[in-house]
């Protein structure tokens, strides 16, 4: 790193920006973001995208309005998706500047100007792309579920630590007021001694994974769909267009099951609420059904986490139960459900106190961008992602082996269980090894 290197080529911070970065949104005046709310180009975060489909487009739509962010390049194995994102971004900025790339290696090697990337491929690529991007000096916002195995999660943690990168996993409910209120009720002791938490798992798909191959179709030209790259570290299988249109869900090679689909969110929420983001559940009790519904897991401190398909009238619900009462929340609730309605009077106070104490905004993408600027750890940091995803992976292994399993969070392996330990990693396919 040359002495004469400018701030722009590394990180762009100014006193005004730094203040914007530390403050909760309600406390940031427009003037703090630059003159008339506009942001000088030299102070912008340059953002790129890797593998943005439907979900990625949604997240990008959250990110684009951020005034200090400029999306400059999309990398996708599918040409159609490169073009779709380019159209969307160019329409937003009123120019044709969004660059397109097909090969992730080419993108990361040539775009040294890009500060951060949004990764929203399918599950199979999240960890590999994150590690590659962090090694290339990018900060990373990765969609969930952010690892396919325990070993992949460890690789993400290692890369973020080693290279000093900012990493946020897309568990956005950690930055939403209703869920924050529930977590704060628990943290401040209003619920008393919490003995049970309940975590929503997706009410579709199954824990049992598919291994079949769809019928082979003629592989398109590489410039249209780079099939080898689309598969990435996963085992080869013949091309079928359905995979590239979202039909990869439910396959062992590509997906983390109905448990990972929402557990990536809800296990993270429960573990953060319990202050257990640096560990994983230790006991997993097998349930004889297709989804893991009703599985009881237990943490070292004795708190039980129960996996449930029902119990909320919204998505990604959690419920915390203690000696003094309970709170339950899911997407779409106008307010959390609580055993004592009087707690709701403190809704604003608890959420504001949280924001004052943690200096976190109620916006997941904003938290990421703030952390890029002040080099602070994000709310959904790599260790939290890895530990909660380890709970997901262990619950999946429990279902796949159709028996109880025990996990040692210190050693990060199943306890005296060589068979289960075989699932801790999967050999990556060359050249997509990290």
């Amino acid at each position, binding site marked *: *790193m040359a002495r004469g290197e400018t701030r722009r080529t590394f990180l762009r911070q100014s006193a005004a920006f730094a203040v914007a970065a530390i*403050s909760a949104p309600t406390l940031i005046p427009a003037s703090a973001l630059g003159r008339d709310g506009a942001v000088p180009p030299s102070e912008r975060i340059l953002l790129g995208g890797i593998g943005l489909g439907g979900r990625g487009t949604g997240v990008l739509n959250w990110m684009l309005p951020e005034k200090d962010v400029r999306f400059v390049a999309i990398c996708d194995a599918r040409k159609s998706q490169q073009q779709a994102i380019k159209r969307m971004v160019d329409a937003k900025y009123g120019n044709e500047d969004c660059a397109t790339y097909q090969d992730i290696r080419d993108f990361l090697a040539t775009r040294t100007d890009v500060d951060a990337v949004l990764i929203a491929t399918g599950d199979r690529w999240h960890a590999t792309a994150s590690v590659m991007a962090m090694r290339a000096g990018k900060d990373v916002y990765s969609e969930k579920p952010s690892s396919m195995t325990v070993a992949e999660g460890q690789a993400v943690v290692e890369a973020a630590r080693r290279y000093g*990168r900012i990493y946020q996993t897309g568990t956005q409910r950690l930055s939403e007021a209703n869920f924050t209120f529930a977590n704060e009720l628990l943290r401040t002791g209003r619920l008393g001694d919490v003995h049970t938490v309940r975590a929503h798992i997706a009410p579709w798909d199954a824990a049992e994974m598919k291994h079949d191959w769809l019928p082979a179709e003629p592989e398109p030209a590489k410039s249209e769909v780079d099939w080898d790259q689309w598969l990435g570290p996963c*085992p080869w299988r013949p091309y079928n267009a359905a995979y590239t249109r979202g039909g990869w869900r439910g396959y062992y090679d590509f997906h983390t099951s109905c448990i990972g689909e929402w557990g990536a969110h809800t296990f993270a929420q429960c573990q953060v609420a319990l202050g257990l983001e640096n560990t994983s559940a230790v006991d997993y009790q097998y349930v004889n059904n297709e989804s893991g519904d009703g599985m009881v897991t237990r943490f070292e401190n004795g708190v039980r986490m129960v996996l449930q398909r029902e119990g909320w009238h919204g998505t990604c619900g959690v419920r915390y139960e203690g000696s003094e009462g309970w709170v339950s929340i899911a997407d779409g609730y106008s307010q959390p459900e609580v055993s004592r309605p009087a707690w709701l009077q403190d809704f604003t106070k608890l959420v504001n106190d949280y924001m004052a104490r943690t200096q976190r905004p109620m916006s997941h993408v904003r938290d990421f961008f703030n952390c890029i600027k002040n080099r*602070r750890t994000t709310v959904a940091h790599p260790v939290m992602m890895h530990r909660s995803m380890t709970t997901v992976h262990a619950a999946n292994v429990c279902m796949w082996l159709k028996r109880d399993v025990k996990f040692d969070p210190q050693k990060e392996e199943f306890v005296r269980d060589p068979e289960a330990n075989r699932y801790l990693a999967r050999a*990556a396919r060359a050249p997509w090894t990290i």
Partner: protein
Amino acid sequence: MKHLKLSVLALTLAVLTNALGQPAATSQPAPRRVESELIQVLKSTATQKEKADACRELAIVGGRSSVPVLAGFLADDSMSHWARYALERIPGSEVDRTLRDSLPALQGQSLIGVIHSLGERKDAKAAKALLPYLSNPDAGVARAAALALGRIGDPASAKTMLDQMKSATPPQRLWLAEGVLRGADSLLQQGKEKPARDLFDALYRLELPHQVKTATLRGAVLARGDKGPAFLATYLNSQNFPEFASALRIARGIQTPDMSEVLLNAMDKARGSHLILLMQAIGSRRDKEAVFPLAMRLHDSDMAVVKTSLAALAQIGEPDSAAVLATMVIHTNTEVRAIARETLASLPGTQPDEEVMRLTDRSENEAKIAGLDVIVRRRMTQALPKVLDMARSPDEGVRLAAVRRAGELAGPNGGPDMLKLLLQAKEDAELAAAEQGLSASLLKSPNRDEAASLVAGAWSTASAEQKKALLNVLSSIGGPKALEAVRRAIEGQDPEIRAAAIRALGAWNSPEAAPDLLKLAQNSNDPVERVLSLRSYLGLVDEPGLKPDAKMEMVREAAKLIKSPEEIKLLLSTLSGISTLPSLQMVRPYLKQADVKEEAATAVLRISEKMLQARNIDKAAEPIDKALQEVAATTANQSIKDRALKLQEVGKAKAAAK
């Protein structure tokens, strides 16, 4: 033997089935097979898919017997990864030896894969064999070798990679650096601090991208153990921003008191953005020792420094900082004031409560109002008598703030006090504040009927304006008693009070007021009152707790009373908020009615838009399409037509995707 025969028979059947063009695999999980069966599959003429499945299972159940069979596939481009898929997970030195021995015969992706597997298995014996691959002309092979050697953590390899970096191209340098860093980290984990430090220091002297510099500096700090924070101090004082930012990121990851001290020392010397970032880092460590140095910054001339200092104090959450924070709540800068109040509100303990009470005793009205604000934010219920006392303040600003805050602070038993304040209020602003306070207080009551009775009991002594305020309070409380009280008001003769009572029913906190409003809409002889009742009735349809069927039932009742085009528009507006097929069907006939067709078209768009967001629109796809087609054909508004056509496309795409 019998078991083996059955396996062969099953395998033969599987091969035959495949040959006949049937799908080779099923989505149903196959029963777990034993290692010998899987080996037989690999040795047979089974398809690639069947062999792949066998490898997948061997990754879980494979043992020593599988190794030679799997090794036979390592040079086969179509099966090499599958062989590794199994081998990488099978424990034992046989696998390591097999992978090492296979190296000379491999090239391209197969070679890259095996090198990677040796690294993943941390096979120390492979280091010597892998070293020459660092110079392989195939960049992928050289990269794999660097990463694997790093993973293995061989010191000699790390030194070789370090030497090679001096003449390497920029991409090569990145892999080699990763290899060296992994090797040095591995030495560190083994407690070999000196050789690790030498590697990190040597690497840091090279020209490298910023992230590698950060990684190297981090390693150099960790390799110095207790002396690491002091070593990092130099970089935290650097005027070179990238160097400073790297150091800061590293410092944030080291949670020792020494590191806190180093950061505070750096803060003393820093200016501008460096100072701000250091203060943020210090705040996030929640170290009590930092409270005084941070508080000293509260009077800085740079507002950015002041605000950052407040935020850092909020993060530390030390009650001792309450006194100094209390001085900031009436700061001339609005943003500073807001942050100071928020911070003071969030501090734990009783000491901040005392500071807040002192604020209300100060002579400046602004301080009193700020104190009232923080009292509520801190939920200081013990301060209620003081707040009620302030509600009699001669200063209007303080008085209004106190009346409003008293209601927010008062518990379920605070109703009488709040009602008294309302009945004393004469000016509009004071009445509004008292109404707000009384509602806030009574909403906390566990018994709604008791709360309603309290309010109803004040009716006879209240002025007309106070009665309107009481009606609003009743609507926010809800329940049978409150409803009875409002009904009595409707039966009165004063038209203004009657209208206020109807509005109160329209603002009811649940649909329980709907029958009263419907009855009024059906029977009232006063056209103004009839329309007001109908509008209020339809307003209750928006109640979030109501299910779509119940909403439609209410709308159907209202439809029977609709007379004028304006009322139809009201109905259409309500229907547009119900995103169901029956709602859509109810709107469609109005597309043909000239005086309301544009409102109907807008309603169709809103309903369709919501319905098309649903995961499954099977049965609704056709009616939505037809309704949108009708909109496009009838509207005179080009923008509505364009939206309808666009939504039609969305619907078709969704149906096709399904």
